[in-house]
């Protein structure tokens, strides 16, 4: 039976998911948006940098691209980033139109700020809460669309991705989702699935942002046959403060407002030269954190800083249209490999999220609009559902001695140790062995929570199983890249080796040890 409109399933509550959904509705597709939590709880809200767009008259898309390429350390995807830079002014203008209050010039137009890696004023910025404003504006827009036309956009809330569903030809025909409240499994058929559930920063113990960005969805696609790329790369910041057991980002623009970084064994942010009135007006959240949580006067005592992982760079391998190695499965934002290369600035990562969502929906429209889309056989959906239900029952029945939280903690420490200092090959190999030992420990987990309602432990353990696979793949990719590029630094290969490694790395899942391609 030919359906009137192709249906697409978008997974995640990230900025890329928001843009992908709005664009897909605009292109006339039926969208189902699968979110575990509302957008307001998105991992993207903690990013306090702005978004880059070549909006000023002396700037251009070419200059923007050239800056991204120089930051990307030789492995930038020029076609995709070029398209992204072309889209950037439109994205910025769209966000402005839906109510993101970007800073203004005296004439009333968007006044971009200069970012650290560019000579142009390019970062549209709305204060410390820029990302929160963006996420909130997208959420308002999405809720409005869903309210006005529930058929065009349906928001499936409180659901988390369990697996993708493939037909006999290996084509993705939908996904199964777990209801986080009841642990019931629901198969959802779709002509295309986009994974937009963020990156895998939370694999490291010293990350900023949400614990939920643990790469479990990426790993699920990996296990089901999607290739991953550039896992070894990440971008870090040194402007992070430690609050309790978590790290928070300080907006980079504070350096333009008179703050200085004191470099040394105890890195700190010195505000003694800055204008207190300006700082208090522009950074109220930072001031509040200093007063209530760090208990210091930032204008007298420098704020202690930490180095933290801000973004993962790698992810699901995609082509220029966002298609993964599995037909019908797409990835965007943090879940997909960044087109920017081995490294990218925060505002460009935010732009990547937005642009990749749009580009992916456009690619799907080109593929699916007007084509025959037969309904998938019900038996395939039921089989996938039963497999997930069996896994949930298997985990619920685990009665070993290990605690999932402890294993997760140990995994993060292993991953952090692998990047804390430049490591030699033998150290990375020993980290791989440690991750394999963790895999064995998972077998002896004991589930203490016997109640099914809002059971975090079963879902956490499911994610943990996937995270370890991703962690192992990451370390294998790290071991294989025998050079230093971006922030991937090897003690035994301290130089960039363009002759052998000026390329994107690929890795494929295998039960007997993941295969590098």
């Amino acid at each position, binding site marked *: 039976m030919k359906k009137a409109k192709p249906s697409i399933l978008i997974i995640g509550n990230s900025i890329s998911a928001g843009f992908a959904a709005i664009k897909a509705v*605009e292109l006339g597709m039926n969208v189902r948006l699968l979110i575990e939590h509302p957008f307001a709880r998105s991992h993207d809200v903690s990013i306090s940098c702005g978004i880059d767009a070549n909006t000023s008259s002396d700037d251009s898309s070419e200059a923007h691209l050239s800056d991204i390429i120089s930051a990307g350390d030789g492995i930038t995807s020029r076609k995709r980033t070029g398209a992204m830079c072309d889209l950037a002014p439109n994205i910025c203008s769209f966000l402005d139109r839906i109510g993101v209050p970007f800073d203004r010039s005296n004439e009333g137009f968007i006044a971009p700020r200069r970012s650290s890696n560019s000579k142009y004023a390019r970062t549209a910025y709305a204060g410390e809460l820029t990302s929160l404003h963006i996420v909130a504006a997208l959420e308002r*827009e999405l*809720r409005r669309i869903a309210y006005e036309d529930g058929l065009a956009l349906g928001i499936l*809330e409180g659901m988390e991705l369990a697996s993708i569903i493939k037909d006999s030809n290996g084509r993705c025909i939908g996904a199964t989702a777990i209801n986080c409240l009841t642990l019931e499994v629901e198969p959802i058929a779709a002509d295309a699935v986009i994974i937009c559930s963020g990156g895998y920063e939370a694999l490291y113990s010293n990350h900023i942002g949400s614990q939920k960005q643990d790469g479990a969805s990426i790993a699920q696609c990996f296990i089901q046959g999607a290739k991953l790329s550039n896992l070894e790369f990440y971008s870090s910041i040194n402007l992070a403060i430690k609050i309790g*057991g978590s790290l928070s980002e300080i907006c980079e623009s504070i350096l333009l407002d008179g703050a200085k970084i004191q470099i040394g064994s105890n890195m700190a942010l010195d505000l003694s030269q800055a204008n207190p009135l300006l700082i208090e007006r522009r950074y109220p959240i930072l001031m509040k954190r200093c007063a209530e949580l760090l208990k210091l006067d930032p204008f007298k005592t420098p704020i202690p800083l930490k180095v933290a992982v801000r973004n993962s760079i790698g992810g699901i391998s995609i082509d220029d249209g966002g298609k993964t190695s599995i037909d019908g499965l797409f990835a965007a934002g943090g879940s997909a490999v960044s087109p920017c290369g081995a490294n990218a600035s925060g505002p460009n990562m935010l732009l990547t999220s937005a642009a990749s969502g*749009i580009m992916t929906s456009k690619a799907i429209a080109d593929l699916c609009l007007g084509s025959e889309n037969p309904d998938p056989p019900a038996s395939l959906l039921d089989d996938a559902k039963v497999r997930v239900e069996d896994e949930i029952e298997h985990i619920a029945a685990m009665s070993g001695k290990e605690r999932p939280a402890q294993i997760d903690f140990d995994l993060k420490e292993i991953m952090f140790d692998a990047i804390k200092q430049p490591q030699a090959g033998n150290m990375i190999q020993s980290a791989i062995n440690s991750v394999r030992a963790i895999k064995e420990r998972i077998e002896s987990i004991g589930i203490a929570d016997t109640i099914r309602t809002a*059971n975090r432990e079963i879902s956490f353990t499911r994610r943990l199983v996937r995270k370890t696979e991703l962690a192992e793949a990451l370390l294998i990719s790290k071991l294989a890249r025998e050079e230093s590029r971006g922030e991937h630094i090897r003690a035994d290969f301290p130089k960039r080796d363009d002759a052998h490694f000026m390329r994107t790395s690929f890795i494929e899942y295998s039960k007997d040890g993941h295969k590098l391609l």
Partner: protein
Amino acid sequence: MSTVLLKIRRRDEHDESSYWEQFSVPYTAGMTVLDAIRLIDFNPTTTTGDKTAPVAFDCSCSDGMCGACAMTICGRARLACSTPVDACADPIVIEPLKKFPVVRDLVVDRSAMFDTLAPASCSIPCDEIEAKSYPRAISKEDTMEMQRFLGCSMCGICIDTCPSTTERAAFTGPFIFPAIYALNLHPTGKMGAPERMDFAMSRRGISDCNAAKNCEMVCPMGIPVPEAISKIGWLALKHGIKRMLW
């Protein structure tokens, strides 16, 4: 202080009665209440030595930005990730937010807040993402006002502490009015102002606000909610007169 004592009000299911359990977790300097609750996962055993289920709670960013970990800590609604353990009484009494249906333990259902956004016209309907559009000028002052009033993390703490938001009252809660006011300042947003004002004048609108101003005191994002409500009051009056005449 080498350990932190947590007294948590638990509830296994929505319709079951609640009970208290007490946990002791190791103390580290600078730890937040969220850190302490997370430590229970490592060894879910009460102070009486009984093995129990780990406590269910919501959290995402751990950064004070996403509003997920709002709960009642020592009688006051606040974000667990932004509350230092040192600032709390001993034991730290933790309960779910009081004005939302409890799903389990500290998890509450705040979906009603999100469901209100669209009926309140709390959005600016957009054209196409890639539409050619000329930049619209917004004055610096209006932008600063918008930055001050937008940025709600939808944590629900204002609703929890608002004496006017009760089960029997139709009042939506304070959270929505700063956004309504700020979106009215936007050049395209102004076009939706009549609908927003209709909402503000409806039974769910501002007439039930008793100006207790708790919302301003407790808002983790520091949004001056009462100021927005009073400004909307004046705009609503003008809107009402217009509605009568035309």
